[in-house]
């Protein structure tokens, strides 16, 4: 549906946009290199034919075992032209930092805080980088694949409760 978007991107940033494909449901996706993501987003927002004024979702994925380990996914939508696009940025685990796009869309603020809180990906230039969902005393980044599923860090000392087998799955899966 928005192949023109990807074509315009590839024409403007030839070296940084690669592997455009059509995803499930008709979305057009392209991979963008990590260093130029802020300029690519500013171009996408300000070009009159594209005008992506909204980033409804920015999230991260952890592919543990594959290098680069993380990927930050930007879902973009234009309320003016009614077209969508998706950008994927590969992030290696050794250098897990992506330039922030809060200068382009102010609404990306909380999504980048979520990526930091849950995955540990840093966004240099972000105005207010702190945890969004978890509390400040929490250690670790829970949505990483190597964080245990039941790794609770209680804030209040817990009382002794007689029956302790809880939940499905083996007790020692942690």
């Amino acid at each position, binding site marked *: 549906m928005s192949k023109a978007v990807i074509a315009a991107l590839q024409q403007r940033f030839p070296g940084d946009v690669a592997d455009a494909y059509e995803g499930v449901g008709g979305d057009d996706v392209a991979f963008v290199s990590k260093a130029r993501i802020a300029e690519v987003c500013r171009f996408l927002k300000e070009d009159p034919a594209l005008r992506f004024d909204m980033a409804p979702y920015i999230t991260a994925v952890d592919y543990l075992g594959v290098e680069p380990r993380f990927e930050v996914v930007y879902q973009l939508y234009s309320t003016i032209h009614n077209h969508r696009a998706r950008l994927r940025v590969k992030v290696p685990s050794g250098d897990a930092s992506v330039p922030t796009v809060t200068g382009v869309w102010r609404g990306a603020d909380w999504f980048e805080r979520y990526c930091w809180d849950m995955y540990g990906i840093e966004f240099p230039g972000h105005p207010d980088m702190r945890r969004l*969902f*978890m*509390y400040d005393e929490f250690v670790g980044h*829970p949505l990483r694949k190597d*964080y*245990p*599923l*039941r*790794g*609770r*860090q*209680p*804030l*209040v000392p*817990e*009382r002794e*409760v007689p029956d302790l087998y*809880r*939940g*499905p*799955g083996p007790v020692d899966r942690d």
Partner: protein
Amino acid sequence: MASELDVVPGIATRREEAQSFFEKVVSNGLGWARKYSLFQYPFVTACCGMEFMSVAASRYDLDRFGAALPRFSPRQADLLMVVGTVNCKQAPILRRIYEQMADPKWVIAFGVCASSGGFYDNYATVQGIDRVVPVDVYIAGCPPRPEQVLEGIILLQKKIQSQPHKLIDRRPLPLFPEPG
């Protein structure tokens, strides 16, 4: 704590548990009064709050049981209804609310998330609020039907009636943990 009191035995075999006739009358009277005038503190966090609202509304009336009036200050309430999921981030808040309530107080765990963590067996959810506060009645369900909630209230009322109540209660107060 009222929720940790033993049930009054029918026949007391030890001298210190024996109640005189007057004490029994007072205990039954106070139990009757306390069970039919529960002031609830609805600690509502999640979807079970919808069922709580429908129990308190006109079709499945909670006012029939005397438990109609919610008090949104813990100082004025005696029944803490924990409705919905409690996170590890929320647990200190729940503990503080419970400690601010005056004796006698009771706690109802409303829904499976409050009873046992529900299906949220993960890094963020307290697996049952009985890990944080002592609980009197657990109402299971996701969310529980209003009839189940009323059954839970009736069970709590039977429990309150069977506890010993005194006019002047000289039990030693529980020690509070140091702040901080």
